Structure formats: structure tokens, C-alpha cells
């Protein structure tokens, strides 16, 4: 048990940012928007959270700043893709590039600085607990509440939703802001709890993994949580195996979680019938109402 607990705790630490960002993106995609800017929103959250905590000394203010930074990036993304109806794929990629660059600039003075870490018990802190609450809350919201039904309806057929009188653009704005806030929070977890310090490019592709997990989970919250923990477990496993010097190249082990994710995605995608039945039908399609 003594050997298992530390491993379990590291798995939790690896999975939590994926859950936070993934659940946010799941909501965004359920509303029919493909946000490839998760990585950029996440790293902006990381730098803003760290900066706020460093300057005020309060990690809780850091959390709020992280959410706000992610949501601000999301607002920009929403303005471009929803109000101006730009191409969602290109815009999302631009947001990611912008976030990576801008965070490096903003974070320059914070590099190597210490902050007060979030209070925690062996690494389990308020954000870890919150990630579970968030998953349950989003699952309930999407499948049990009227508002969640509207989100799914907008993602399934925006024309019909508009005809019924639902404000498609506003629903999508809210979903995108929620997703951005979640991505920012995930970034904040990295810089306030996981490391805790600011390193340029510290998200290291976690935003992309979160995006892949949404598909992997076929847009279902609890499956996303399971996927995030599977991914976290494999990362930690690979890391642990490296220490035993089994002659397996370390590069291969570092790549293992990504390879497993790719394989899992391929296996899931093979069942095209199931995947298509779950995919929000309007995913990635801009909505422009008639006059």
C-alpha cells in the first residue's frame, strides 16, 4: 500500500488538468463549436494564475486569474468564430499560437520565481476535488437539465434550434466561455499546484491531449474522466519503468502515452457508426442566421 499510494497520487496529478480542460472542451463541442485553441487558453491560464499568485501571494486569487485569462482568450475566439463566423479550425490554431507566444512574453519575469503552493494533502488539493465535481455537474447539466438539452440541440442542428427560437450564438458564446475558463483553470493547476512554478511552454501539449480525449470519450463526461486517468496512469507507468533501466529507450517510454492515445482513438474511430451517432452534427460548422 505504501508503494501504491504515491503512484496513485502522481496519476491524479497528471490526470486532473486533462479532466478540467477536457470537460470544458466537451461542453464547447456539444454546442457545436470545435475549439482547437485549448492549448493556448490553458497556457494563458497558467501564466496568469502564476503571475497573480506571485504578485498577491494568494494562490486562490491565482485560480481566479487563471480562469479569467482562459475565458478572455475564449472571448476572443468566440468573437472571431461566432460573431464574425471565421473558420473554427484556423482560428483555434491561431489562438493556440497566440497563447503560447503571449504567455512566454508575459511570463518572462516569473521564470524561476517561487510562489505559495495551493494547500494540499499529498498533492490532493481543492482543484482535484473540483475536477470530480465538475465532471458530475456537467454530466447532470447536459443530460438532465433543460439548459443542457438546449446546448445539445444547438450542437445537433443549429438551424432547427434557431427556428425554434433559441439564441444559437449566445448559447455557443456561453459554452465557449465556459470551455475557456476550464482550460484556464487547467493551466492554473499546472502552475499553481502541479509544478508549482512558471516554465515557458509548460503545458507541453496537454491541451491537445484534452482535445483528443473528448473524441476518445465520445462526448460523454464520465468517459472523459476515465480516459484522462488512463492517460495519466500510462504516463506515470512509463516514467516509473524508466527508473528500472530495462533497456527500453526512454524516448519510446516518453512517447508511450501519446501512442496509446493514438491507438485508442483509432480503435474507437473504427466503429464509425457509433462515433457518428454521438458526434454533435454541427461540430465545426459556423452558424450564420438568415437576415
Amino acid at each position: 500500500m505504501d508503494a501504491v499510494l504515491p503512484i496513485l497520487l502522481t496519476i491524479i496529478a497528471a490526470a486532473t488538468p486533462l479532466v478540467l480542460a477536457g470537460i470544458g472542451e466537451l461542453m464547447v463541442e456539444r454546442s457545436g463549436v470545435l475549439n482547437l485553441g485549448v492549448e493556448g487558453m490553458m497556457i494563458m491560464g497558467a501564466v496568469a494564475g502564476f503571475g497573480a499568485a506571485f504578485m498577491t501571494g494568494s494562490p486562490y486569487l491565482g485560480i481566479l486569474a487563471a480562469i479569467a485569462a482562459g475565458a478572455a482568450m475564449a472571448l476572443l475566439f468566440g468573437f472571431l468564430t461566432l460573431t464574425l463566423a471565421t473558420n473554427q479550425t484556423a482560428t483555434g490554431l491561431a489562438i493556440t499560437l497566440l497563447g503560447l507566444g503571449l504567455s512566454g512574453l508575459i511570463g518572462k519575469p516569473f521564470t524561476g520565481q517561487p510562489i505559495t503552493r495551493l494547500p494540499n494533502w499529498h498533492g490532493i488539493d481543492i482543484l482535484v476535488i473540483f475536477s470530480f465535481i465538475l465532471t458530475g455537474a456537467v454530466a447532470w447539466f447536459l443530460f438532465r437539465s433543460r439548459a443542457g438539452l438546449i446546448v445539445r440541440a444547438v450542437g445537433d442542428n443549429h438551424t432547427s434550434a434557431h427556428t425554434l427560437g433559441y439564441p444559437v450564438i449566445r448559447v455557443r458564446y456561453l459554452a465557449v466561455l465556459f470551455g475557456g475558463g476550464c482550460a484556464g483553470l487547467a493551466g492554473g493547476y499546472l502552475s499553481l499546484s502541479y509544478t508549482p512554478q512558471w516554465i515557458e511552454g509548460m503545458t507541453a501539449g496537454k491541451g491537445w491531449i484534452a482535445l483528443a480525449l473528448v473524441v476518445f470519450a465520445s462526448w460523454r463526461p464520465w468517459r472523459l474522466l476515465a480516459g484522462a486517468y488512463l492517460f495519466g496512469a500510462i504516463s506515470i507507468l512509463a516514467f516509473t519503468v524508466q527508473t528500472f533501466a530495462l533497456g527500453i529507450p526512454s524516448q519510446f517510454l516518453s512517447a508511450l502515452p501519446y501512442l496509446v492515445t493514438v491507438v485508442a482513438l483509432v480503435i474507437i474511430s473504427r466503429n464509425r457508426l457509433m462515433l457518428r451517432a454521438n458526434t454533435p452534427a454541427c461540430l465545426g460548422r459556423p452558424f450564420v442566421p438568415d437576415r
Partner: protein
Amino acid sequence: MKSVPAQTPLLEARKLTKTFGALTANDAVDLVVREGEIHALLGENGAGKSTLVKMLYGALQPTSGALFWKGEAIAIANPAAARVLGIGMVFQHFSLFEALTAVENIALALPGDFDLAALSQRITTLSADYGLPLQPSATIADLSVGERQRVEIVRCLLQNPKLLILDEPTSVLTPQEAEQLFITLKRLAAEGCAILYISHRLEEVRRICQRATILRQGRVVAACDPRRETPASLARLMVGGDIHAVRAHRDEAAGPVRLKVNELSLPPDGPFSVALKDISLAVRGGEVFCIAGVAGNGQSELFDALSGERLADYGHAVEIDDQPAGRHGVNWRRRHGAAFVPEERLGHGAVPMFHLSDNVVLTRHAVDATVAANRRVLRPGARAIADRVIAAFDVRKGKPDPEARALSGGNLQKYVVGREMDRNPGVLVVNQPTWGVDAGAAATIRQALVDLATRGAAVLVISQDLDEIFEIADRIAVIARGELSEAHAAREMTPEMIGLYMAGMAEAAEAQAAGEGSHGPHP
């Protein structure tokens, strides 16, 4: 137009006008709908029916004019406001959410408490009451078109509508389903609900409607009692002239079999796709063979298998002039004399952003050296063909070689059909040749199909339009749930028999066929 002062109309539109840029879709339209009447709104495609009802339903705002509800001037800002007034609408292209269940779809349109269990109960009760059986927990994607329409109607009925608008409701129904719908509508009217019924099927309008308003080119050209009119007089009002009937048929087809399908089976290729089960048919040179069926029963899957967009498991599944084609793609089939016109003209039959001449190249590049040779596109050749088709089919266009999307639906369909006919194919497969096409263009296309068969080609037409089928078919088969019925000579078939086949009741239909055979004039 007369007015009855004794009763205030439920809904009245005065001088309603809607313009889109330079186009006037509705020009000073007057409309009066009274409680308890079934009121037909007639007109060709593009006459402005949809624009008018969208304004009544709040989905579009009029440019000018006034609306009165029970005598009071109102503005209907959006569909939600229309629903509050008591206006419900059943759309032609359904406004349902495919990934959601029936009860979820209905809940989205209803205000008030969000209690799906209680709502399911109400749906079950109400749908049983009106003879519209419905399973609330069913996902829309799994439902047939007729069942989807029921969901829409039940959704409207739950809001206790005072005015129910139906946009071409029977175009997707079997004749028997349509009968059931008429019963429901008559009962609703008897209960005091007004029904605005959009259709271009004149027979059914004459049967169930008490009044009709006829639109042509955005204007009201007549308001009449359809029961006192003939289909021909109504058609004249709609079109503004006579439509010449398709010239009568040639003799019994005696040519060799040119297109043959042997026990073709294909699995579905998507969650909303239909499996083809053991389909066999043979079309002879000189005949028009029609496949009837309600949309979504395997028509597009069959078309894809015939055209080579999907390959069969073995070559003999599809034979063109006795050569196995099942494993060959669309270009091979074209080289062997076949031509194909898919259902969707924009995006499948033609590329919207391409000029008409470029669209010629798309289906000719592998078969016509005047269009493409030595890996080069020969534009003069393509232009010549485009001009020939435009002249032969009277395609109306704004400039010499416009983009495909600039043509109206009817003109583009004439062009797409004409492009394939221009090759003088030995085998022609057409899916829904006149869907959404005005009556004049439809007549031109049907005549061309018949003429092509007369010249010795095998013509296979997949269509939902029974009037069209009876107009041009030599033989008729029915597709239902991916299975094809036995083919019968057109003169032995009745709409009722086709309806039974559509409902999957082959035995009953065969029995009727046998009955027809023994009692009919041709034993």
C-alpha cells in the same frame, strides 16, 4: 375577395411584402384564414409560399404590410412569439434534432416545467388519442420520415394551436399515411383549429380544403373554393398557362436487357443509412423503369451502387449491357454507355462554385476526347457542350456561362439532366429527377426521359412522386427498407398497391395485383 363581417378572421395578412435585395418574394399578399377551416396555399416552387408562412410563423420579418390576429394588428417577432399566440408549424424539411429523442425534441418547443417523464406520459396519451402512435423515448435518427412528421405534429398539438401550418406534409408519406393524416386534420378543424395547408398536390387539396389562396411569382392570383375547381383549372391558376402533358408512350418495350442488378446486398455505410437487401432488377432498352418509395428507404444507397460510388462485392451484382460492372467505378461505367443523375443537384450533381462548362468536364473527362485529352481540359469543347445543353433544354440563365449556383433549382436540374442526356447514354439512372422543380421544367425533364427511352436506352428513374411515376413509367417496382418489390407493368399498378408495398405489405399488394389482373381489361 369577399369578406364576411359576421366573423372576425383568425388571421389576416394585408399587403404583406417581403423583398430579398432585388428579389420580391412576396408582393402585397392578402390572406384570410378563419377558425375551423382547412385553407390551402397553392403555388409552384418559388411562388413565395414558404416566404409567406415563414413570416406568419415569425421566422422572417415582412418588409411592409400588416398582420392581424383575431382582428388586432400584431407583429410576430420570432417563432416563440408565434407559438405563444397559438401558431404551430410542421416543416417540410423537418426541424427535428436527429441525435435527440422524441420527448427531448418536443420538450425543446414547450415552455414550462422540465419534466420528461410527465411529458412522455402526455405524448403517449395525446398521440394515441389522435391516432398518431409515437414512442417518446425513440431517437429521431431511428425513425422513418412518417414517424418524424408525427413527432412534429404532436409537438404542435401539445401547444393547443389555434392555427396549424403544414408545409407539403404528404410529400414524404405513403398514400395510407396520408389518409391517416387527413383524418387527423379534419378532426382538428372540427375542433376549431384553423389549418393552413401548403401543397402542390391538387387532388388532395380538392378533397380536404374548403378554401384556397393561389400564389404565382409572389402575388396572390386567386382565392377560390378548391372543391368547385378542377385539377386542371387549379393548375392553370398556379402556372398561369397550360402545361402540356408528356407525350404518350411507345409500344411494349422489346429491347434487350441493358441494365441488370443481381441479388445486390450492401451493408449500411453510416448510422442513418439503409442496408440494401438482395435487390434484383432488369431494365430493357426502350423502357422507363421507375422505383417508387418513401425517402430514406435505400434510394440513395441503391443509386450509389448503380453509379459505382459504392462498389458491390462481386462484378455481376451490376451488369451494364451484359458486362459485369459491380467492381468498376463510375468512369468505367460511363465509358460503357451509362450516365447518372444524382438526387442533390447542388454539391452532388454539380459543383455550385464551378461554371456550367466546368461542370461538363466533371462527368465527361474520362469519356469524351473533346472535353479532356492528354491530361488537359479542353475548354472550347466543354463550352460547346454546355451551350448545346442550354439550348436543347431551354436553361434560363443570367449570363453566358454562369456558376451552377446562380441557376434556379429547375434550371439547374434541366442542365444536369441535359448534360447526361447529351451523351446519348445507353443506360440512364436518375434519382428524383424533378424534386423541387417547377411544373414547366418537370414536364421538360419527363419528356426527355421518355424520349431517351424511345431511342432505345434503358432508363431507370428513382422517384417519390407517384404522379410522375404514373406519367412516365412502363414498369414500376417499390423500394421499402432496402428491399425492392417485384416489378409490375405500370398499367397494372395502382397508388394503393404502391402504398401497400411502401408499408412493407408485399403479400397484400400481390393479392391486389392478382385481383387487378383477373378483373382488369388486360388479363
